[in-house]
């Protein structure tokens, strides 16, 4: 099995075995990601980091991953300053970027952008999130965080709460968890529940899932509580956003009836869906999760560019 030269556009581009290989490699990368061990395996390699939409964690962790491995980064951050605002097609931007780099990480507001990039680029493409679509590297770091804390996926109870309609991280995550045999509960108000096309996919693979609309009721039976921000920019009307914002919040008190080993995750940034009182409980794993973005992306860079240690 080799990931050499592969595009990572959907989590479905990776088999279960390949996902586990990435997670194992990420485990080995942790001391380098922490700066405890120095590495130069990417010496002379360039990552093009093309972020056509605002992002903090994803872009910084991709760039940190490349730097920690001794490689270089060229970057476009936001539409400003890039040729996209001058009306250049993504296809042209990609053809330019592939000639300047060895591997490309891309985030774009349109769904399908990363797949388009992969059809125009001979260099490998890693999708850093496309519109409300897929975000496979977030999924990998989520899986890494879950496995490090629960020991595995089969039969664990995962509650996924918040903006399930527009939140791209939860689409990829639920498809992956479904493949690994986790049981999921989707907790959201009706208007932002998990989209039908994702549920159809889950049905096809025989995944087990339920839908609920109250996050506090699912806490006692969960091993993982994955919270997401209800994103204002995804709603066409402010009024529609106001109706749902605030309906899904937890604090330390809400976790009192939780299982001892429950972990609370969040892709961040959070607004007020997880109160700061949760940070001090042993359940809080969202900062560990954010850190895990670095070793996971290092593992991908290493496996895709297949560099020797």
């Amino acid at each position, binding site marked *: 099995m080799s990931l050499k030269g592969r595009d990572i556009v959907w989590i479905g581009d990776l088999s279960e075995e390949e996902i586990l290989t990435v997670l194992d490699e990420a485990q080995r990368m942790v001391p380098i990601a922490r700066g405890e061990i120095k590495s130069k395996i990417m010496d002379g390699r360039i990552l093009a980091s093309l972020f056509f939409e605002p992002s903090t964690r994803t872009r910084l962790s991709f760039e940190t991953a490349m730097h920690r491995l001794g490689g270089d980064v060229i970057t476009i951050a936001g539409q400003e300053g890039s040729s996209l605002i001058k009306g250049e097609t993504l296809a042209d931007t990609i053809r330019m970027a592939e000639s300047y780099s060895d591997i490309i990480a891309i985030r774009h507001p*349109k*769904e*399908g*952008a990363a*797949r388009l990039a992969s059809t125009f680029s001979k260099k490998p493409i890693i999708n850093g999130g496309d519109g409300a679509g897929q975000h496979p590297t977030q999924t990998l770091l989520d899986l890494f965080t879950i496995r490090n804390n629960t020991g595995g996926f089969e039969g664990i109870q995962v509650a996924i709460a918040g903006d399930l309609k527009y939140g791209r991280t939860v689409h990829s995550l639920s498809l992956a968890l479904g493949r690994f045999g986790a049981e999921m509960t989707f907790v959201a108000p009706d208007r932002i529940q998990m989209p039908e096309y994702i549920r*159809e996919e889950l049905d096809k693979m025989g995944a087990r899932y339920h839908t609920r609309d109250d996050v506090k009721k699912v806490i006692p039976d969960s091993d993982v509580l994955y919270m997401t921000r209800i994103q204002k920019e995804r709603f066409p009307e402010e009024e529609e956003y106001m109706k749902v914002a605030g309906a899904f919040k937890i604090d330390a008190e809400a976790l009192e009836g939780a299982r001892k080993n429950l972990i609370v995750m969040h892709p961040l940034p959070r607004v007020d869906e997880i109160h700061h009182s949760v940070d001090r409980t042993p359940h809080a794993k969202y900062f560990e999760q954010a850190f895990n973005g670095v070793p996971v992306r290092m593992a991908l860079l290493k496996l895709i560019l297949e560099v020797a240690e």
Partner: protein
Amino acid sequence: MKELRISPIRNGTVIDHIKPGMALKILPLLSIDQEFDTGLSIAMNAHSEKHGKKDIVKIEDKELHPREVNRLAVITPNASISIIRDFKVVKKYKVRLPDTIEGIVRCENLNCITNGKEPIKSRLIKIQKDPVKFRCYYCGRIQNRIEKRII
């Protein structure tokens, strides 16, 4: 008595059992436009034993390959194709939805990159036979009612 709305052709292709009213819609899918220079007859709302009404298109001196006509299944899944040589039917088959539909149907996801100005054609991949289902190759969206979004 059998009624002939349009006369038989000596050589060419007959597309029969077209969904009534759809004859004109299928012409662009066959690249038939002003430049088209062989004989073409169209019957609309002709009598059909099976369906009550149907459209028929006859193209003279041109034998269409399944590759060219299968895409018609997107808008008229029951159409049949007859290849005519010297007034005789030498080959007859029903259209069959292809595994990939390129540049014919728009992706239903308005935010899909294929619905912008990029230099690519839409591309839908068949993922299920019965009932037939397509998925956008680019954004991954499973498509509903593709016949409503013919480009």
